């Protein structure tokens, strides 16, 4: 194909020149379009993947729940093994008794006993128009839960759980977006706080005038419900218990170990 073929085709067909110019423009448009789409694809998530990601998120949550159930099952089995081993000798039995006590105190065993159930839920009411009260006051916040748990502990509660999440020594109660996380598990209203202790003492501690619940009860009494119960079951803590920094200090009865060390260095 030489130049003459092109020239003759232009002469014979009047449409070739405009179409060629348009083809040049189209090529440019295609190139820019392609580049822009590539940038979009690399910069952001395509919207057609949102549903897939949502499904994956649900799957992960489901798996987390199952894993937590497995943890509690395995911990129960460990307790069984410990008990079985203890039946072998008197010494082992003594050791096991103190081990079980430590686990009980740490919140690693389910417990039951008399206590109260406090149900806190977001109000269905809205502040009246032109009211100075913010709508924020009509929802239950992490601080409300913290104050109630604190008050229950102060009134002698021996075990506390929020929506089945056991409160242990290093439990954090914090606000994350629209949910409150307890033990890093997202919970939402209504919050059921279970506490084992003397029901009368616990209930009256929460009902003190100007007490922890006075503010929200004044806004909407329906936000708080306190039920005394003869028997409450509180589940064990199922989260992870990894201590990376804290190390137990080795007990030194009578300071003998320290003395020995000093003797050795002398």
């Amino acid at each position, binding site marked *: 194909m030489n130049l003459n073929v092109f020239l003759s085709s232009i002469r014979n067909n009047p*449409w070739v020149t405009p179409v060629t110019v348009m083809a*040049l423009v189209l090529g440019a448009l295609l190139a820019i379009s*392609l580049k822009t789409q590539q*940038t979009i694809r690399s910069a952001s998530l395509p919207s057609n993947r949102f549903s897939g990601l949502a499904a994956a998120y649900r799957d992960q949550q489901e798996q987390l729940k199952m894993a937590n159930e497995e943890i509690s099952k395995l911990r129960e089995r460990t307790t069984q093994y410990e008990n079985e081993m203890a039946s072998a000798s008197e010494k082992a039995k003594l050791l096991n008794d103190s081990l079980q006590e430590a686990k009980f105190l740490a919140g690693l065993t389910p417990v039951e006993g008399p206590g109260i159930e406090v149900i806190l839920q977001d109000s269905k009411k809205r502040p009246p128009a032109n009211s100075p009260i913010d709508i924020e006051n009509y929802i239950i916040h992490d601080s409300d839960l913290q104050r109630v748990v604190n008050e229950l502990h102060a009134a002698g509660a021996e075990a506390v759980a929020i929506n089945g999440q056991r409160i242990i020594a290093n439990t954090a109660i914090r606000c994350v977006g629209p949910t409150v996380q307890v033990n890093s598990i997202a919970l939402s209203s209504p919050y059921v706080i279970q506490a084992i202790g003397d029901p009368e003492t616990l209930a009256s501690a929460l009902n003190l005038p100007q007490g922890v619940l006075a503010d929200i009860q004044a806004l909407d009494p329906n936000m708080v419900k306190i039920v005394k119960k003869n028997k409450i079951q509180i589940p064990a803590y199922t989260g992870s218990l990894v201590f990376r920094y804290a190390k137990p200090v080795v007990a030194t009865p009578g300071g003998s170990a320290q003395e020995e060390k000093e003797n050795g260095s002398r």
Partner: protein
Amino acid sequence: MNWLPVIALLIGFFVFYFVPLELPSDYAPYLSLATLSGLDSILGGIRAGVEGKFHVDVFVSGFIFNTLLAALLAYLGDQIGVDLFLAAVVTLGGRMFLNLSLIRRYYLTQWNISRQRDTERT
């Protein structure tokens, strides 16, 4: 066959592919519609050309008005929450198939005629 438009297309593509020019991604849908409209215009132009009905004014104004209408539909669709640009995509896409089939028929007929002439000659 005329290979000039194809060559021009490739030149335009590669020149602008390596030129660091990019539009903000907000305009990406409009750019895509303009590309589609351009593709439709070219196929329409070739078809008119082979049928001997080609007019430069129709060709150029067709491209401009199709692009404008497609962009307007896309914008309106954005505002009222309906994917109106699909109307442009379907119409232009359908027409491209129609034009392409007519062009194909024209060149097939020509090819058949020239082959018959060759056999008659021998």
